[in-house]
Each structure stands twice: as structure tokens, then as C-alpha cells.
């Protein structure tokens, strides 16, 4: 199952992750001034939060990583007929 963690010490509370997440996985804790994962079940592993976070505080585990089609022999074999 997909896991998502925010490293609390690294988070600066900029809320960019809240803005970029299309499925509202995060909430903002007003007391601590930091983002928290509210609903990991909604995460589609687009990794936009992870890319946009200025301090690299967000990490994912057990998710599907996109495959570079041009480095995948199996993919190339199947695409042969278009070439």
C-alpha cells in the first residue's frame, strides 16, 4: 500500500503541497504551522507535492514509478508496428 510521509522538521509551512494536490490529501495544522497528511487513500502518486516542496520534505513509498518508454525493451517490441 502506498505510503506518504512529511518530514515535520523539514516542512516550512508554505502550503504549496495543499495547493498542488488534486485529491486533497493534505491539511494544514494551524497550531504547528505545518502540513500534515490527512488522507493517504486519496493519493494518486502523481508526486507533484514531492516535486514542488521547496525543502523536499515529502516522500512516497510503495508507489508505481513511471517507465521511460524508450528505455523499456518490452515497450519497444510492442510499438514496432508503428515505426
Amino acid at each position: 500500500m502506498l505510503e506518504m510521509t512529511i518530514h515535520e522538521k523539514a516542512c516550512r509551512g508554505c502550503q504549496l503541497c495543499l495547493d498542488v494536490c488534486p485529491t486533497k490529501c493534505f491539511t494544514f495544522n494551524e497550531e504547528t504551522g505545518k502540513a500534515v497528511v490527512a488522507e493517504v487513500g486519496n493519493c494518486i502518486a502523481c508526486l507533484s507535492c514531492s516535486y514542488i516542496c521547496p525543502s523536499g520534505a515529502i516522500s512516497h513509498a510503495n508507489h508505481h514509478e513511471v517507465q521511460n518508454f524508450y528505455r523499456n525493451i518490452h515497450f519497444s517490441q510492442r510499438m514496432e508496428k508503428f515505426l
Partner: protein
Amino acid sequence: MEELLKKRRTLQETMNFMAALSAGIEPILGRGANSMTMSAGRNLGRKFSEGARHTDDLLEAIEEVRRILVANSCLWGFEPFKPVDQHELVSVTENGARQVSLVFRDCMIRQALFRFGHPQQGSLCNMMYGFFAGALESIMGKKASLEIKHAGENACLKVLTVEA
């Protein structure tokens, strides 16, 4: 093996050319570029789904589109998605249209765009909209649209709407 590696390079070059072409036509044609790629995608969707099974069930139709893509050697990994607080995959809008969210993972368009540093949600992405519209017109006999809700680095979230 050497032949395959050669074809792999050709594939990469073709996709990079496609990305450059799409980025090049956008400033010239403006919104017309989207119409052009959408139309090309729709024609492809219609052509590929000529012998497809007809159904009125949206989820079955999506599975049929997936089967068509695999049968035609197009590896576009997508899956239906619903937020935790939503009960069913398919929701119905006020005007009776059916909607389902789709998450696209492995996508050679995205990879080609990133390789060239082009932005997402451009005319090439619109080709997939056209493909779904064309394929679902054949399978369900209804108009469909595929709106890009979010274009991410590792996955994209799109909303498929089929008119009542």
C-alpha cells in the same frame, strides 16, 4: 537484439519529434492546435474501436478501451479512481451525464514532453482526449470528453464525462 535497439531509438526519436511538433504548432495555431490533435485522436479511437463490443455500462466501456489499446500495442496505463469519501466510481452530474476519474500512469506523451522540457496539458495531451471520445462514441454511442484535472510528474488525473 541489435534490430530491436535500433527500433527503440527510432521510437524515442519519433516521440521527441512529436513533442517538438506539437510545441511548435501551438504558438502558431493557438487553440486550433488542440482541435487538430483532438481530431486526430478521435479518428484513431474510432478506427481502433471498429470491432469493439458495444455496451452502455461506463466501467465496461472503459475496460473495452483498455483492451483496444493493448490489442493495438498502445501501452497507456490507466485506472479508475475515486476519492475515499466517494461511494461509487461513477458519479452522475445534475444534467444526467456520467463521470469517472481516471489516473494515467505510464504515458509516452508525458515522457516525451519531459525529455524536451515542454509543458504538459498541451495539444499532444489533447490527443488522448480525442482517442477516448472517438472510442467511446463507437462503444457507447454517446459523446464523451476527457478533461485533464491535474497533470503530474508521475501520474495525471483526468475526468471522463459521458453525456446522457
